[in-house]
């Protein structure tokens, strides 16, 4: 968890900006109104940060804190009195609020991902800068009651903020998980689009409604966001329960003596890393993970377990039969059809003699085929580097017929990386949520 300072540009940029903001405010001084508004919004950001949520894929979000910060950045009046906080003040208030919340989380024994916080500060600052750039001509403090003209500017500002947040999140992910950049941007956009829209809309509304209703605006607008957050939390919970259950039930074949211990979990970890390496989307990765966890479930229909469970030692026809039995079981759930197809085709070769490669063969199936074979091959001596090298070499020999060359190369990269870092593959992230 403790990464070097140099590797965390977002944290430094974000909190550095916040610090500069605080210093600037201390030097210049601020009006009483400005301070009062700052403390209320700071408190709201702080509370919102305390109630953060984890979305599927290890994404930490704090919708209320972000909405409050955006609302503060776009603020132009509180009731009839004009109040427009400068960009540095916004960063200072947000930075100190989230830092205090992180401290409190830390005292309660919960880790905070500082990258996320730094990113949030930068995103809001970008939004605030946009807003002030467009409204420079209008004297915000003396604005007439008609605020409709500001709405397009506000929309532009939250879009800039969202873009900065999206790009920096994707960059961060790509850096630390090895996802290709474009794939990371696409996954990030898909994962946070809904919540992001709700947060951005609430931010704009906080600024507008503060003018119309004064302080009443804050509680009224936070409420719908609370229910949004609640529904996301429940969604994330069922997703993680689903995952934990599939992982647990994937041990069925091990307990039954059909495959060696930990085979399914190891194959799924290796398969997911390989899949990430070849640029699969997050949805595809989840399907791949489930399929890898359950890839041997068809063996339940065998009368007697295969010796040591390795499907490498049985005939191709038998392998095919096990795969389709497994697919049958998975398909009977009625909800995992894509996973069933992956499992069904895991035994198919990459291409047959004198035929072109089969395009309909899912990439996920090719990955599972290679990952499962690798795990069977190294099961003799998993810790021995020579054994690992031999296993990769055997996969390479089967390349272009049995295995997809692209998949084998990606797998080889993953294996060499994990071997050099000494981290076991199974200890990859996204294996569950941290308690909130």
């Amino acid at each position, binding site marked *: 968890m403790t990464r070097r300072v140099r590797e965390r540009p977002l944290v430094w940029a974000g909190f550095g900006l916040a610090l500069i903001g605080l210093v600037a405010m201390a030097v210049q001084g601020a009006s009483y109104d400005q301070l009062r508004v700052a403390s209320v919004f700071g408190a709201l950001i702080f509370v919102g940060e305390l109630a953060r949520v984890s979305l599927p894929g290890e994404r930490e979000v704090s919708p209320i804190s972000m909405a409050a910060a955006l609302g503060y950045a776009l603020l132009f009046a509180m*009731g*009839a009195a004009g109040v427009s906080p400068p960009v540095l003040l916004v960063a200072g208030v947000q930075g100190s609020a989230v830092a205090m919340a992180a401290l409190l989380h830390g005292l309660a024994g919960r880790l905070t991902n500082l990258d996320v916080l730094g990113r949030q500060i930068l995103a809001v600052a970008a939004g605030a800068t946009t807003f002030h750039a467009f409204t420079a001509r209008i004297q915000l403090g003396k604005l007439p*009651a*008609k*605020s*409709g003209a500001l*709405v397009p500017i506000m929309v532009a500002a939250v879009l800039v903020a969202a873009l900065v947040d999206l790009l920096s999140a994707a960059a961060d992910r790509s850096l630390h998980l090895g996802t290709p950049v474009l794939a990371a941007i696409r996954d990030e956009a898909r994962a946070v689009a*809904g*919540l992001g*829209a*709700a947060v951005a*809309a609430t931010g*704009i*509304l906080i600024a*507008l*409604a503060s003018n*119309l*209703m*004064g302080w*009443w605006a804050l509680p*009224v*607008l936070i*409420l*719908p*966001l609370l*229910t*949004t957050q*609640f*529904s*996301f939390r*429940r*969604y994330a*919970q*069922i*997703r*993680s*329960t*689903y995952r*934990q*259950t*599939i992982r*647990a*039930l994937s*041990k*069925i074949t091990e*307990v*039954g*003596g059909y495959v060696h211990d930990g085979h399914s979990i190891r194959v799924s970890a290796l398969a997911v890393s390989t899949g990430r390496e070849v640029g699969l989307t997050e949805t595809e990765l989840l399907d791949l993970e489930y399929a890898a966890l359950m890839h041997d*479930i068809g063996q*339940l*229909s065998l009368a007697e377990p295969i010796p040591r469970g390795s499907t490498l030692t049985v005939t191709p026809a038998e392998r095919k039969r096990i795969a389709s039995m497994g697919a049958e*079981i*998975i398909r*009977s*759930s*009625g*909800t*995992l059809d894509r996973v069933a197809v992956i499992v069904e085709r895991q035994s198919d070769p990459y291409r047959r003699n004198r035929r072109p490669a089969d395009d309909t063969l899912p990439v996920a199936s090719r990955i599972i085929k290679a990952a499962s074979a690798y795990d069977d091959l190294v099961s003799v001596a998993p810790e021995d580097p020579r054994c690992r090298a031999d296993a990769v070499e055997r996969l390479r020999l089967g390349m272009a017929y049995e295995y997809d060359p692209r998949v084998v190369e990606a797998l080889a990269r993953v294996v060499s990386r994990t071997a050099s870092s000494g981290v076991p593959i199974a200890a990859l992230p996204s294996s*569950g*949520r941290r308690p909130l």
Partner: protein
Amino acid sequence: MTELPRAARAYVCSVAVVCIAAIGFAIPHVHHVADMLGLCALIVLCVSVLTVSETDSQFDVNLGFVLGITAILVTGAAGAMLVAGSSALGYVRGGRPPVKRIFNAAQCALSGGASGLVYGALGGQVHTLQPGDFPRVIFVLSCAVVVYGLVNHILVWAVICFSQGLSLRRQWREAVPLTSSPYLAYGFLGLLMAALWVNVNPVTATLLLIPLLVTRTTFANYVEQQQAYDATVAALIQAVETKDQYTRGHSERVAGGSVLIAEQLGLRQEKVKALRYAGMLHDVGKMGVPTKVLQKHGRLTGAEADAIRAHPARGLEMLGDIEFLQEALGGIYHHHERMDGKGYPLGLKGMEIPEFARVIMVADAFDSMTSNRSYRPAMSIENAIDELVACSGLQFDPVMVDAMVTALRIRGWRVQGAEKARLPYPKVSLSGIGDGGSSPASPVLPRQVSAYSSVETDS
């Protein structure tokens, strides 16, 4: 579900007639027609893009309600009536019976209209909202919101009473209380929307709907995932059960039985849910027992008996990482204990045995007795009940046995092999419009959802 009692039909018709008369009376009084039409269009649009699914009333954001309140402030009582009533036009999808749609439209329109009248009578201003109005308008609006909720509640309550004929007091609680605090808060959201609509512009006001729509969509996704989860667990458990043809469907029936007991005892919703999964997964450790031992006819050797006795521990080992099952794990691990301490794996006694285990023990034993086994035929339900009662105190917790027997007499039991059969046991049927129709076919357990309490929550 299609057959409503005559009294209920007459009631729905009279509500509809009153509503039509009220609309006829209101039309000449509609002002701000353009605003009203805009709100109507918005409400129809919102309702028709939403996924209509089984939802949890507490978190169901009632968009119609927010827009209805907005309409009161922007267009007045007459306009609010039309706007609220038009929400029913959006429910073209979802295959609701027309009776329900008519009733929904009528009750929404009447609640909206009544609430608008109260707002006007207390001196609330229409189509102007200045910062200076603020503390006062909040009080006036609160009264209007309470009336909105009350009228809605009474109308729905009455339809449930007419169609189910159960005790009035119980139905009063079952009709979704619109007067509860979240609704008051959503009323303020309507107020804010109206303020934006009048003072900024209508397009900006619709920004307010984004968080609500996102919540709805997420909630629908959640429900979908939950169903997918249930189906997957059921499919995997079935795959395990193929090892032994005699245990087919056992896990699902034990889950159903555990839920029967839990509901009879009045346990919390969360606990009932956890118990359902615990019942579902209680025998998963049997995968570690060789098939020939499970199906053996004669006496078991010591080693074979040990293999069987190890299955709760194996189950615990497998399921230990599932966070939400933590409370249920005890139930799985101890489901072969006995009250007199002669069970396994630990030989716990009486109340030392976790509550979940005491529930599962009874459901498990009852289903085993009423199912065919390789070494004996099934027992009749009456005999199995007698056996439970005879062993209560020694083997089973008497409280659980009582709950099971009572629940069986009310709800019935689906025995082995009777997949979609009628409930084979005489029961006091809850043949309301909600039950009956759906419960025997539902995959896991009969759900008690009364149709008309969901009328309001879906709208």
